[in-house]
């Protein structure tokens, strides 16, 4: 007995040491990408589909032999949109998992701790499906990148130009947004663009998150008598304000951002006065990549419909392209060099390629389409085809 106990102890220690020692070895056998995302919690509806789709896409790539003959390993941490969790995630992903790239898919309040860890370790930080911070626009921070479809200022500009092009009478525009910083910034920019385009701004309603009843806000907005309303916010706020307006008898046109569930919602609501503007093609557009998305979504048995996952697939295409240009053995510095010169063919999922340059980590050009429900055709139809906006300093 006295002999067996130290022997088993020694065996246990040896196994533990072997496990610890093998971890970095395993990591070096694959391209390792780390994610800190709001996979659960109140904000998960916006962010979790992006990461679920990214994982499905990378599993699909791994099934075809990986990238440069190596598999891609995705380490996913759930930050529940809490900054403290994001900080712990970033530390763990960098020091323990030795990731090449950090991905953030969460609220902007989680950015600061991840930026700090990214800077400390020199690991690039990629925002996917989360708001692109100013640091990704020209002149970009050397370590921060973004592929997310939306951008408050550009979207507002595109939406106002769309309204201007469609309106047959003088525009009295109202605005609705959730009372969160990024949405307020977008709406304030839209107001200034509207004024510069000769529109009359009649009202602006900011709704707190969450709101049990949107009718009081819609009542005020309706009384201002707008013939167009623009809303740029999380989908819940956008669509509930619209539905409340309609129930109050408002008959004007409503332009809003095409979040990942927009296509399904247009079909549910079936209102020809509801327009969605976006930069990701809807499945109605039926590009070849949509068939692949449907197939991968089905094979991976994702919890979300295929129409929800385009943003995640775009992230997958970007990661695939970046890692292809990251020679083996990979390091964060090599990945960073690849990211600074990447040009990703998005295969029709957007109006053009996604291109990052050393001083522009957003994209050099943003393309917008607009859709609505057409009662005559009983289908979602395209109202405006890809319209480019250059992304300038």
């Amino acid at each position, binding site marked *: 007995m006295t002999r067996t106990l130290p022997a088993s102890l020694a065996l246990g220690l040896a196994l533990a040491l072997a496990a610890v020692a093998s971890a970095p070895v395993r990591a070096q056998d694959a391209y390792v990408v780390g994610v800190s995302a709001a996979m659960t*919690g109140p904000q998960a509806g916006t962010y979790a589909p992006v990461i679920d789709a990214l994982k499905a896409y990378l599993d699909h790539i791994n099934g075809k032999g990986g990238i440069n003959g190596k598999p891609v390993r995705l380490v996913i941490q759930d930050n529940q949109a809490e900054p403290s969790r994001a900080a712990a995630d970033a530390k763990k992903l960098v020091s323990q998992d030795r990731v090449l790239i950090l991905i953030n898919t969460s609220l902007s309040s989680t950015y600061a701790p991840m930026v700090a860890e990214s800077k400390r370790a020199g690991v690039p930080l990629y925002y996917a499906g989360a708001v692109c911070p100013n640091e990704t626009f020209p002149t970009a921070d050397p370590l921060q990148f973004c592929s997310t479809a939306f951008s408050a200022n550009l979207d507002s500009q595109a939406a106002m130009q769309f309204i201007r092009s469609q309106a047959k009478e003088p525009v009295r525009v109202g605005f609705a947004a959730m009372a969160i910083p990024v949405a307020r910034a977008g709406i304030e920019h839209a107001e200034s663009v509207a004024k510069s385009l000769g529109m009359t701004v009649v009202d602006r309603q900011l709704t707190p998150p969450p709101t049990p009843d949107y009718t009081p806000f819609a009542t005020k907005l309706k009384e201002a008598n707008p013939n167009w309303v623009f809303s740029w916010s999380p989908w819940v706020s956008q669509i509930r304000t619209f539905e409340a307006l309609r129930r*109050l008898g408002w008959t004007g046109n409503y332009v809003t951002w095409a979040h990942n569930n927009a296509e399904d919602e247009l079909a549910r609501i079936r209102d020809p006065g509801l327009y969605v503007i976006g930069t990701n093609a809807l499945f109605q557009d039926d590009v070849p990549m949509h068939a692949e998305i449907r197939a991968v979504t089905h094979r991976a048995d994702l919890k979300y419909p295929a129409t929800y996952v385009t943003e995640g697939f775009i992230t997958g295409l970007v990661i695939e392209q970046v890692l292809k240009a990251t020679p083996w053995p990979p390091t964060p510095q090599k990945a960073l060099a690849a990211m600074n010169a990447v040009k990703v063919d998005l295969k029709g999922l957007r109006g053009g390629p996604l291109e990052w340059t050393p001083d522009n980590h957003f994209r050099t050009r943003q393309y917008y389409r607009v859709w609505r429900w057409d009662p005559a055709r009983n289908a979602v139809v395209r109202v405006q085809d890809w319209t480019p906006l250059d992304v300038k300093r």
Partner: protein
Amino acid sequence: MQLAVNIVVLASIYALISCGYVLIYRVSRVLSLAHGELMMLGAYGLLATAGLFAGHPLVAIAVAAVLALVVGVLVYVFLMRRMTGEAVLAAVLATIALGILLRGAMVLVWTAQEQRPLAALGWTNGSVALGPDARISMAALTLVLVTAAAYLGLWLFLRHTVWGIRMRAAGQHPLLAAQRGIALHRVYALAWGLATFTGGLAGMLIAADSGLEQTMAVIGLKAFPAALVGGLDSLAGAILGSLIVAGAEVLLIHYVDPLLSEVVPFLVLLAFLIVRPWGLLGSKEELDRV
């Protein structure tokens, strides 16, 4: 007129939610901070039964309502009963833990995707005119009527039924009630069941009006000031508190700034805590005991 309708609808939402807080507090002196999550669970329950009983919406609603009641009883039996004899704070902390657990479980089961229970029932949410210049959605109108029916039903139950009288007795003096042969655990279980039932109805009706997603749990907390303003142990106070908070909120949205709607319930609450901490119709000695 539309403003009055808006106030009544918002007050009904707050009143239907806050009667759950009052029922539990009045009987057991426990503040249930899982009420928002239990309310959300009621709404998800409707979504589930709508799928199970496709084509039979009334059956789906009835089963979901019964499920909500059963869930409340089970919460008491399996969790809150174990807190008997512990400090009130421990029981409150247990409800917080329950809320976190429920939130996580609901994401796992139903995902974080926005759901539409009304569409799952095969119904749409139209609106009706109330006079020349006011409209109300069908779901909101139903919510107002259900709130009125719930309060009337609870009043009748507490006044005129044996179990209702037992519940009041247990709330007023639990030791004396127990000595008189009232089974306190059954009374508490019933209170939890009724609170979750009314909370579940609120969740179902809010989800029917505007959809269901993860932030609904927070709406449960937004009704809390209404319950406190009215008095945590008074159902009539909950109605009054809801009207005051909803009135202040709607009028400030309309005449001052919509952003104030977020803070005004808590401003009203603070004002009452300073001036009359036991609420409008609450019992002063009850709060002294807390």
